[in-house]
């Protein structure tokens, strides 16, 4: 029986031993690995998608790059883990990824019931509908009895039925477990409408439709979808690093710190800018990082405004307006907690 006992002991060691080494150790693990494991989508252009050379691009991708730059000093030290909407939470909970930066909606159940901690909002979105123009539908309220293609494992699925109930109409969801499958079904004409976050609809219409002009994004948004990066519970230090890196990206735009000017601004007389770049005060030590962390993040990917324009806004194929995602003093609701 000794082999069995040995097996038992080995199993016990395997399952129990790493347990004490938990809280606050994500950062150590990342440093010793030399890589940040970042959970992204399997391909939503503008947020996270690999281009034909296999380079990951998008707003969610840039968030991870900024964190890698702040923590490891190199925005390219990231391992990209593409996750389906079903797998994403398991991957984060089990430690397969250190951060989930994958157009994920912040909601109470996810925050409090599924072991996640959302570190901030990087994109204020809402759920909309995409329809073929030939269906002659111009408002979501006309979708009575329509069949709507939707991807499972999303908040979208629930919002759709909430919307139908609030409007007193019947909508038949056709639910697919994979993004590709739901797209294929919609474009084959299986469903009269496709529903997901409006930002993703823009990309689907622009990039996935056989002819974008045959399709229309309906004007109504039926829900609030604040998207942001999440980390797993139980490591407050790591949570703080992610939260404040996101804040730094937004704050940098407000302070006018851009990718190109990071270095030259070190001599700025503005105390907020000085603090941001760690010239006088060392904010980094509060996070367990060095004084230059925020500057490195901006140098790697630029401030929030630059990230937005490059991936979603004017300089991107999607050409989305800033809308809610403008700074609080420019008509939007982005408001970074101050770095001081």
């Amino acid at each position, binding site marked *: 029986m000794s082999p069995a006992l040995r097996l038992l002991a080995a199993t016990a060691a395997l399952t129990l031993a790493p347990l004490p080494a*938990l809280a606050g150790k994500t950062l150590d693990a990342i440093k010793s690995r030399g890589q940040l494991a970042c959970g992204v989508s399997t391909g939503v252009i503008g947020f996270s998608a690999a281009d034909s050379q296999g380079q990951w691009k998008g707003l969610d991708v840039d968030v991870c790059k900024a964190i890698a730059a702040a923590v490891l000093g190199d925005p390219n030290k990231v391992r990209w883990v593409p996750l389906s909407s079903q797998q994403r939470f398991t991957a984060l909970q089990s430690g397969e990824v250190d951060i989930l930066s994958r157009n994920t909606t912040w909601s109470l159940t996810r925050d409090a019931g599924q072991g996640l901690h959302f570190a901030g909002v990087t994109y204020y979105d809402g759920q909309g509908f995409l329809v073929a123009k030939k269906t002659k539908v111009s408002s979501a309220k006309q979708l009575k009895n329509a069949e709507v293609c939707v991807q499972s494992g999303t908040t979208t699925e629930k919002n759709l039925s909430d919307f139908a109930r609030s409007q007193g109409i019947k909508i038949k969801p056709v639910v697919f477990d994979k993004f590709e499958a739901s797209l294929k079904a919609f474009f084959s004409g299986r469903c009269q409408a496709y529903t997901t976050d409006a930002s993703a609809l823009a990309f689907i219409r622009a990039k996935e439709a056989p002819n974008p002009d045959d399709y229309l994004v309906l004007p109504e948004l039926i829900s609030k979808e604040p998207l942001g990066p999440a980390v797993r519970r139980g490591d407050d230090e790591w949570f703080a690093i992610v939260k404040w890196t996101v804040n730094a990206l937004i704050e940098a735009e407000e302070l006018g710190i851009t990718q190109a000017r990071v270095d030259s601004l070190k001599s700025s007389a503005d105390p907020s800018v000085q603090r941001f770049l760690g010239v006088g005060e060392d904010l980094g030590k509060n996070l367990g990082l060095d004084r230059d962390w925020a500057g490195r993040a901006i140098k790697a990917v630029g401030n929030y405004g630059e990230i937005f324009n490059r991936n979603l806004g004017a300089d991107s194929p999607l050409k989305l307006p800033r809308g809610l995602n403008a700074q609080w003093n420019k008509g939007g609701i982005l408001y970074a907690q101050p770095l001081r």
Partner: protein
Amino acid sequence: MSPARPPEVARTAAPQGRADLANLGRLRRALFGDPLNALLSLGVMALLAWSLPALLRWAVLEAQFSPDVGACEALDHRGACWGVVAEKARFILLGRYPVEQAWCPILAALLIVGGWLGAASGRLPGAAVATGLLLPPLLACALLGGGFAGLEAVPTELWGGLPLTLLLTGAGLAGALPLGIAIAYGRRSSLPLLRALLTAGVELARGIPLVAALFMASFLLPLFFPEGGGLDMLWRVLIAIVLFAAAYLSEIVRGGLQAFPEGQRDAAAALGFDAWQTERWIVLPQVLRQVAPSLANSGIALFKDTSLVTVVSLYELTGSLGLALAGDAQWRPFYLEAWLFIAAIYWIGCSLIARLARLAARGAGPAPTPSVNAP
């Protein structure tokens, strides 16, 4: 794949000239012997006459063979657009694996198939057969993973296409066969408790669908592992496949063991073989050869079942078909042609495994191959 043949085949050994006439007469009788038969024959002929020319026209005469989207769209599905295969073949066959190291998955696939060929050739001793089954999947994993000898490390989520299908089948079989044999012996042990536990485990695995097992691998297994110490999806899925297949294989082996004549064990004992030697050299080789057709069926089932891993987002052959076409608005309409392409691959794979198993059953040693269907 039963080796039994229809009895008609055996009867056609008559002298040439007269036999032709006799055959013709028999053929006419078989086709139009009575009204019902004549009706059925005419029906089948009409079906063929109607479908074959249309098929020929679609698949060959009016088909477009070059990867030219415009020309394909102009065809408007009157002819097949085989250009989609030319355009997407690399993606469908190799998935998202980095292009510059494409030779790694190709070599890995060849290794696994080569291992099967070697194991089935029947000219190798038992130990070599085992090596042929066990070693190639391990080598394939190393090759695909890279990270040595100047090869770039490739994370498992980028593995895909046909090599992944073959790896899941090969590694699944390599893991499940020894485990299945062990379970089969365990269920014959004299310890009732062990028997009961193994029986419960086998019945549990055989009672649930593979999709449920894959969901468990995807969502439950991570809960057992400590944070960060978890396994990649691929390994979790492989664990599920091995356990699942082992349950089925163990039943086959157990059936073979039950049917094994006790007298041979006694004879072996009389010759001075100990229990282990008897099983290793006398019983197991015969039992495995006897159940080879059933094992082959399980192998084919496993090969086909690997397509299910796409529900947990591993992009093997079927999954990469969806990935290659659904994400490309231009080529999406030519799904059928791409589907036929991978259908042909599965067809060849299944036939290959069946043929190899027949080879293995016929192969090594003078022991006659008992027909599975013998009364």
